[in-house]
């Protein structure tokens, strides 16, 4: 220890008893006096500040208060592929209260003011109180009372500002839906950030009171659309009145705009077609028909041109003051879930539109030859219990090859093929269905998507409890072979399947957003901030001859005398190929429940050089050829510029 620098060995002399020397006593006294002096200095300084000049500082505190403010950035616009605006902004007026300013007020005065304010902006007092209560832990963020306030009310509030301390009026950009209900589920809506979202997103630059996209494109591309909020300071007096110019420390930066791959005209046509298909079904006595979906997509690159879902709703119910009754109405079962995007999240048994998957799997795996002839009959018996499985046409009895069976949509032909698949250990239909994108999300850039279901023996074992239900039986394979039973698909998955058939075996990645743009300003052209070129279609390894056979079968389905939608498409000037489907689904509508037919049609055109794939489903719409096929035709009419009535077309009863 003695070698450590800085520490010399202790004094060798033994220390005598310690006594406070007079010199030390003086020093302790000096210390004490110094401490007294410092305390006295603080005491008199406080006396001077608080007691002598207290009034003046109180005045300063009340009159010259700096308040930080936050100005939301103008939100970016959403346009279609040609720059046609779908969602833009319109100016509105925002009325807000600073909760901190309310705290200093007498309770009676505060209540009276809130009551008057609520009356002026036509918001129930209870709602205002509820909002304030919701934000009581955060007195430094203004609480929005109402967003879209009429000009005369704004003028009144401004003139009588002294009577409304802490009430702030500012400009705000409100969402404008240029085409009303058009693409409502796809575009989504914006509303104030919830406490839950704030908790998750606080470190990503979101603050209390921010507006955030809740669903659809508004949600999926919120980080591009929202821009950067401006912040700054402003002086206000004790009454909350602004007494200085706004000093920005950061100006708001407008959000980027999003350009979709959607074509507004085709989207309009698809939504009209959907309404037309529902009306056709109801004319045919399908009383439960009340919705569906139509998708139009480029089969070569996956660009979605139309994504329609019915029933629909007006997203402007979320703009301005949101009326709870309006939201309750949207959520009611009678409304048939208009906010659900059926095109990507609706789950339906695909029925006969699934038959090409069975055909491709069988030919590819070598247990079916395209030239092989199988007798198409009215019904077959299968399984240990000799259960009867019927054809949609009970009177058929003729030999068919694969193309004819597809065109005719012969069920018993595919039962036979499915039974062969049942004999094989590796579930070939399910294997190829998964490769074609079934049972999983397609990965389109707007969600939430449905996964659907491809039933397998393993799934059966997992999903059911009793030994009987856990067993995969011939009947399960038979049902799967014609897209029935437990099989579930989204309209978007079916669109991908028909794109794959049309383009010769390549799975495309469906996508809806083309690019993010910095909008054009004065003197500056629009700049592409980020482009989404899409991924290369993936060849899933199908035999070209198998695909060609299926393509031919689907062409015959729309052109041969025995085709299931020949009467709809055969005279259309552009060659269209495609398949009907009539899928039974167990549904519950109000008090009624039972099996209803889901009307499907999927196909593409022109046949040899595909430009557009269309898939339509009419919920509870009956036969595919009677509702979905004529609806899909309307989309082709718009796309190829063919005038309705310039050719012969009629719906047909078929599978």
């Amino acid at each position: 220890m003695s070698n450590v620098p800085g520490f010399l060995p202790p004094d060798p002399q033994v220390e005598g008893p310690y006594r406070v020397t007079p010199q030390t006593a003086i020093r302790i006294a000096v210390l004490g006096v110094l401490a007294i002096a410092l305390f006295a200095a603080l005491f008199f300084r406080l006396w001077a500040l608080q007691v002598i000049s207290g009034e003046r500082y109180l005045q300063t505190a009340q009159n010259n208060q700096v308040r930080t403010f936050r100005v939301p950035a103008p939100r970016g616009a959403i346009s279609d592929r040609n720059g046609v605006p779908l969602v833009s902004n319109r100016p509105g007026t925002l009325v807000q209260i600073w909760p901190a300013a309310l705290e200093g007020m007498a309770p009676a005065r505060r209540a009276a003011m809130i009551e008057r304010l609520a009356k002026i902006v036509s918001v129930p007092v209870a709602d205002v109180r509820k909002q304030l209560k919701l934000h009581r832990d955060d007195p430094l963020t203004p609480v929005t009372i109402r967003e879209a306030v009429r000009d005369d009310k704004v003028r009144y509030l401004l003139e009588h500002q002294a009577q409304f301390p802490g009430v702030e009026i500012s400009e705000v950009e409100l969402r404008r839906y240029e085409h009303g209900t058009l693409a409502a589920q796809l575009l989504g809506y914006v509303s104030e950030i919830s406490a839950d979202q704030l908790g998750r997103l606080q470190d990503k630059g979101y603050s209390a009171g921010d507006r955030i996209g809740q669903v659809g494109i508004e949600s999926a591309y919120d980080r591009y659309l929202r821009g950067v909020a401006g912040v700054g300071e402003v002086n206000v007096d004790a009454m909350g009145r602004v007494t200085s110019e706004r000093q920005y420390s950061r100006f708001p930066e407008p959000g980027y705009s999003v350009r979709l791959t959607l074509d507004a005209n085709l989207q309009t046509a698809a939504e009209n077609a959907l309404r037309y298909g529902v009306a056709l079904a109801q004319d045919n006595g399908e009383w439960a028909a009340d919705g569906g979906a139509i998708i139009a997509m480029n089969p070569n690159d996956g660009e979605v041109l139309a994504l329609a879902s019915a029933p629909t709703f007006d997203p402007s119910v979320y703009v301005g003051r949101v009326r709870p009754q309006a939201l309750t109405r949207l959520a009611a079962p009678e409304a048939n879930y208009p906010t659900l995007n059926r095109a990507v999240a609706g789950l339906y048994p695909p029925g006969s539109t699934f038959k090409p998957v069975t055909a491709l799997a069988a030919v590819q795996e070598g247990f079916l030859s395209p030239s092989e002839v199988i007798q198409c009959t009215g019904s077959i018996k299968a399984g240990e219990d000799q259960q009867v499985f019927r054809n949609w046409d009970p009177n058929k009895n003729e030999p068919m090859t694969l193309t004819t069976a597809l065109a005719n949509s012969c069920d018993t032909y595919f039962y036979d093929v499915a039974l062969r698949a049942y004999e094989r250990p590796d579930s070939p239909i399910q294997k190829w269905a998964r490769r074609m994108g079934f049972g999983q999300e397609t990965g389109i850039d707007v969600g939430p998507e449905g996964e659907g279901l491809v039933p397998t023996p393993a799934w059966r074992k997992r999903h059911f409890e009793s030994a009987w239900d856990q067993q995969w039986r011939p009947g399960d394979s038979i049902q799967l072979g014609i897209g029935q039973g437990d099989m579930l698909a989204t309209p978007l998955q079916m669109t991908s399947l028909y794109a794959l058939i049309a383009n010769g075996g390549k799975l495309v990645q469906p996508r809806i957003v083309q690019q993010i743009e910095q909008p054009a300003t004065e003197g500056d052209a629009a700049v592409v901030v980020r482009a989404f070129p899409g991924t290369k279609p993936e060849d899933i390894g199908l035999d070209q001859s198998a695909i060609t056979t299926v393509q031919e079968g689907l062409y015959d389905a729309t052109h041969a005398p025995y085709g299931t939608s020949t009467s709809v498409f055969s005279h259309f000037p552009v060659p269209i190929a495609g398949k009907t489907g009539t899928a039974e689904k167990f549904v519950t509508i109000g008090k009624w429940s039972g099996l209803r037919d889901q009307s499907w049609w999927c196909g593409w055109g022109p046949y040899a050089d595909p430009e557009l794939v269309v898939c339509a489903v009419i919920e509870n719409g009956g036969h595919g050829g009677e509702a979905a096929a004529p609806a899909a035709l309307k989309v082709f009419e718009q796309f190829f510029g063919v005038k309705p009535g310039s050719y012969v077309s009629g719906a047909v009863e078929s599978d």
Partner: protein
Amino acid sequence: MAVRVEQRQVAPLGAEATRIVRHLDFALLAAVAGLIAYGLWVLSAVSRNDVPGDPDYFVFRQSVNIAIGVVVLAGVALLDPEVYRRIRVPLYAVSLVALAAIFVADPVRGTRRWIDIGFFRFQPSELGKVVLILVLAAFLADRARRIDDWSTTFTAVGLAAAPAVLVFLEPDFGTAMVYAAILVAVLFIAGARWLHLATLAAGTVVTLVSMLWLLPSAGIQVLRPYQVERLIGFWNPDSDPSGATYNISQSITAVGSGGLDGRGVAGATQTNMNYLPEHSTDFIFSSLAEQRGFLGAALLLLLYAIVVWRGVRTIAVAPSLFTATIAAGCVVAFVFQVFVNIGMTVGMAPITGIPLPFVSYGGSSMIATLAMIGLLQAVHVRGRLAAERR
């Protein structure tokens, strides 16, 4: 026999503890208890809106800090201070290592002050204060006979400079100043010559002038720009009301607006609307003065004055030069922090970020302050015991 042996070993220990407790300075304990209770009450009123949804966030955590600090106080008060004299070298080494370890950690808000040890964020510079008092007191007691030597004074300066420079580099200018105050206090009470003290004072002035003016004009920046702004702003608070001195003028407005009896918790707009930055820590006095007025602030000053009075008295009753020096270091560190913190909020001292003892939110500061109170108690007890023996 066996019973008697056991009793002989246990009984003296118990008797020792009883004698220690009897000789505690109860006036000091009462004042400290009052300060802790008052501080917690102030903190709860000031911080209720700081964490949305959890008005007791800071109060709860501060209560845990107090509980730990009280245990530390009890332990330190029971222990004979002579122990520190024996372990001064390891104490000094641990303190320096902890201060140096800071520079390995990630900076928080631009400064490196904390070390994460699991559940607790520990601030070595607070512990370093206590260690510096003990180490300097030990060194000066060793050198009692050669206290007039220049080498004694210079070595003491060197011993204080090493940790102070590390703290200064964190950067924590305020706490480095506390270290300087401790050095002056122990030299003063240990009996350093007036000439040495005057030389130190002159040296300080020269250093400050060169840091603020000479070296920067030669192109060498010792202080960071914000530190210079704060030091200059303190002399001239009206120069830039929205910039560097914004905090001072907002704080003075808050204090002044409190008037005689305060604006209450709800009416304290300076606090509630966040015009006062750091109102749970550095500027908590401004909030107290705004909410409770001159009466509330004066009550706090009175409690501090009692602590200082008892502390100065303890220097006089200390049983040895070593313990007297310890007591002096503790008292001066305490007075210095109270004065610089409150002085800062009323525009009498530069903004340095020193916590207000017992009131500012913060675990390390609370525990270190209670440890210093424990040291004062230990010195007081040993002094009384020695007097009893005589």
